[in-house]
């Protein structure tokens, strides 16, 4: 736990965990579908982004960092698409 980058990465990962916890709490507490959807996508882009950033810092080889970044992009794309689809479905079903 000596070098600066490790210290920084631990801090960032802790932050990411915080976001995850907040998102989950929001998911449970919030009443309607759209706002809960908002909480979920927050977890995916912000929380996961911080996690990836934290990990990139402690990666020995830079290529692994790029791979991690690629993973993040993929998660972003898929969560946005699914979020949009669920929202479309929720809106159409609204008058239920």
């Amino acid at each position, binding site marked *: 736990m000596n070098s600066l980058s490790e210290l920084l990465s631990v801090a960032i990962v802790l932050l990411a965990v915080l976001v995850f916890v907040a998102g989950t709490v929001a998911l449970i507490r919030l009443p309607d579908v759209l706002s809960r959807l908002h909480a979920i996508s927050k977890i995916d882009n912000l929380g996961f982004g911080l996690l990836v950033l934290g990990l990139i810092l402690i990666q020995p080889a830079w290529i692994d960092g790029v791979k991690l970044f690629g993973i993040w992009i993929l998660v972003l*794309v*898929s969560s946005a*698409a699914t979020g*949009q*689809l669920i929202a*479309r479905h929720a809106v159409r079903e609204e008058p239920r």
Partner: protein
Amino acid sequence: MMIWSVIDILICALVVALAMAALYAPALRQRVMFFIAFGLVVAITWARLHAPDLALAEAIIGAGLTGAMLLMSLDHTSDMPREPASYGLRIGSAAMGGVLILGLMMIVSSLYPIHDGAPTLAVSQRQVESGVSHPVTAVLLNFRAWDTLLELAVLLSAALGILNLGPARRSCGHAASLTDGLARVLVPLLILSAGYLLWKGAFAPGGAFQAGAVLASAAVVIHLTGWEKLPRVGLRSLRLLLLVGPTLFVAVGLLPLLNGQAFLQYPVELAGLLILLIESAAMVSIAGMLTLVYLGGHPHANWPIELVNPKEPM
């Protein structure tokens, strides 16, 4: 090292919790969701137990494909309210089951410590002759190639069985322009990574099954986005698709018999190349078979539901 045992306990607890949830959740829909989550956590367990091949396979096939199949078949299984068996029966069976499981767990724990069996040494000694550097692929495609060939046959029999079970699931129609965009990005990416997985299988976790499954997931994406303009795969080429893997495998296996060696005994210097050849053919077939398994029917069959060649005797 204490941190690792904490993580182990956490993972095991999560796995058991998700398993219980997937089995005893009230509604079928919830059970399928829990099952997919269970599959992902099990993928993490394989990673923890130093089995990257299995993590890949579990993620793609266990959670991915099986989960997709279950989701698709949710719509035609009615959630029949099962009247729970009498209270006494449930308690009795739970108790009896509990005792059995406890006994099994004690027995399993009595097996430890696992003596370091001969096989690990044998595999590493003969590794160089197997033509591939990654031990799991060596075992899968050289030492125990007969298992893999039979496994292909199992997949083939499932696919053939499904082929004559009526028409495939209707594609979900044109959901949204966004999914078109997503699919247009994802599908080529999947195909690319399938090729990469296949080629890497020789010296790192990967191989025919994972690559085939990735291709099948590409087909799932296509089915979900309902791309009608794709060229329809002809019946003849569908059959060929299913056949190329096993046939090539058997052909390569029979060659050594010509000069008096055993079945599936690849010549040592050609082993690497032959394994790659077999794996690529197998990938294509596995992709076809898994897609059929997902579609749940004959892609071309336009049988009206009742008319299933009635003059045919039962």
